[in-house]
């Protein structure tokens, strides 16, 4: 008798006895119990859930973005009016846009906090170097998503961001061809940026996220850096339900922000002037540009991401506990303080003083 025949001859009562009803039936078909594999219990703390929270933010962005795309018109003539219409005419449109806006900021902050946690716990060290690099690329893509999202609302702020992008494309020559308006001169560049925002960048992030998760599964969650021991373990499903709790808190906060602090929409754009400041996450680059000109934006970006990519190849010692890595931690503190200092400098500078 084959296994199939055995299943076919089981009565419903037998099946119910052999498991826990509906959950067991689902498990039989989907293999959910495979998620019960053990992970270190410290993975259930907030610090070790930041990556999962980042992924949850991505989920919120996709959900709200799907709604926004139903009403957004990615043409130069209608982009800004359609965003206004989303806010003024679409039921709960302003709320959805507000949540999308704040979720993007949350994702940016959570990515940084996650990177800092991984750095401080030395979780990028052998054999996890590749996963660190995947994370750094995803960080760059998140910034790309925020940038394109800023541009496609097509107000003065977004248009000025685009102008900087075009300048950098010119500096890069052939390497910047895709970012140039001349790449497809019969098409408005906003259309290509819109496609990048809703398809290319999220697609790349999701693909890399799958690789990221697979590598975490492959190498396991890193041990407690203070002791180097894995310590007590808990099923991964416990991590998921804890993460669900953190996610609901985040969603609640995003909802409150979306209602109470909806993002504004700037005036329709005019070329050739600079009267706005970019989003706060780009302020450190704004300061560099004020001091050294447009090329400094690229220098700064390439420098920061070059440093991030080099981390696992520079800091290769065996110790993962931050107190036993004074050089690496001091270097990181200097970089972080520099970025914060440059950001505050722009905060204290009016847009009119720019260059």
């Amino acid at each position, binding site marked *: 008798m084959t296994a199939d025949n055995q299943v076919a001859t089981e009565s419903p009562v037998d099946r119910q006895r052999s498991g826990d009803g509906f959950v067991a039936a689902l498990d039989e078909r989907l293999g959910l119990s495979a998620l019960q594999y053990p992970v270190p219990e410290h993975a259930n703390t907030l*610090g070790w859930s930041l990556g999962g929270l980042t992924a949850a933010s991505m989920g919120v962005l996709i959900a709200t973005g799907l709604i926004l795309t139903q009403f957004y018109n990615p043409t130069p003539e209608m982009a800004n009016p359609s965003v206004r219409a989303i806010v*003024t005419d679409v039921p709960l449109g302003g709320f959805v846009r507000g949540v999308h806006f704040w979720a993007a900021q949350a994702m940016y902050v959570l990515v940084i906090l996650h990177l800092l946690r991984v750095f401080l716990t030395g979780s990028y060290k052998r054999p996890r170097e590749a996963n660190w690099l995947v994370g750094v690329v995803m960080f760059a893509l998140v910034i790309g998503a925020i940038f394109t999202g800023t541009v496609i609302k097509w107000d003065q702020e977004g248009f000025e961001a685009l102008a900087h992008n075009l300048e950098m494309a010119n500096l890069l020559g052939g390497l910047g061809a895709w970012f140039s308006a001349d790449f497809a001169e019969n098409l408005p560049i906003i259309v290509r940026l819109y496609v990048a925002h809703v398809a290319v960048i999220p697609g790349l992030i999701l693909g890399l996220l799958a690789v990221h998760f697979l590598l975490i599964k492959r190498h396991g969650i890193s041990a407690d850096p203070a002791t180097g021991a894995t310590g007590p373990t808990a099923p991964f499903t416990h991590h998921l339900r804890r993460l669900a709790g953190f996610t609901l808190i985040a969603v609640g906060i995003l909802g409150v922000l979306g209602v109470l602090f909806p993002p504004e929409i700037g005036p329709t754009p005019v070329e050739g002037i600079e009267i706005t400041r970019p989003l706060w996450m780009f302020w450190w680059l704004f300061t560099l540009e004020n001091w050294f000109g447009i090329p400094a934006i690229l220098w700064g970006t390439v420098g920061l991401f070059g440093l991030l990519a080099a981390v696992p190849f520079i800091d290769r010692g065996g110790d993962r506990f931050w107190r036993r890595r004074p050089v690496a931690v001091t270097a990181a503190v200097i970089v972080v303080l520099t970025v914060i200092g440059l950001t505050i400098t722009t905060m204290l500078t009016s847009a009119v003083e720019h260059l």
Partner: protein
Amino acid sequence: MVAMLLALMAGGVGPAAAHGEQSDEAAVLVRQAIALIVSSPDDLGEIEEKTSAALEAPDPSGVDLALVQQADAALAAGEDVAQVRVILERSIGAGPVGGPAEESTVEEPEPQAATAAEPEPAPSAEPLPSEAWAAAEPESVQSADPAPSESGTAAVPGDGGMDQMATGADPGSTLIAEPLETAPQLDATDWIVLAGSILVGLIGVWLILRYRPATGREAT
């Protein structure tokens, strides 16, 4: 990476063209002046610089320079920038009355306009162009028909039909809309959404407390 760095080095250091180069199109300069009025109405020097540059621009096409002259004089006389804006918008055919496309409707500047003693009065009873813009049908912005729309917004010269739609990095619109203030005036729906959000957050708090790690240890 090396190629990027070389490209950067070749680019050198200095202000970007986007920041420093003045357009040679009067229409662009007028729109810049309007944008400055919308965004920084107190910066009269910058606004006046743009109107003056528009008057001397090598390419005056699509602009009624007489109206720009009138606006420039009004600025110099310290007139209300809202009125200056209306005149400038009319000069490029973006105002409620129409511009070069409707020459007959545009008053010639009177001699005293040069001294700005009596600039073109702004029709305060009429909606501001931004309001008219907000109410305008998309076709009124894109149509090749120069007649004003029902909302009073004139067609934009050069913004034609499908074959003339913006390409590349063209901003695509001549009208400058005011920023849309989104400060919440909470209605019943907002309160419900707010309460729902708080409830979701509280459920999250309950979950993380309910399922907190047995050791209660935080990450190092």
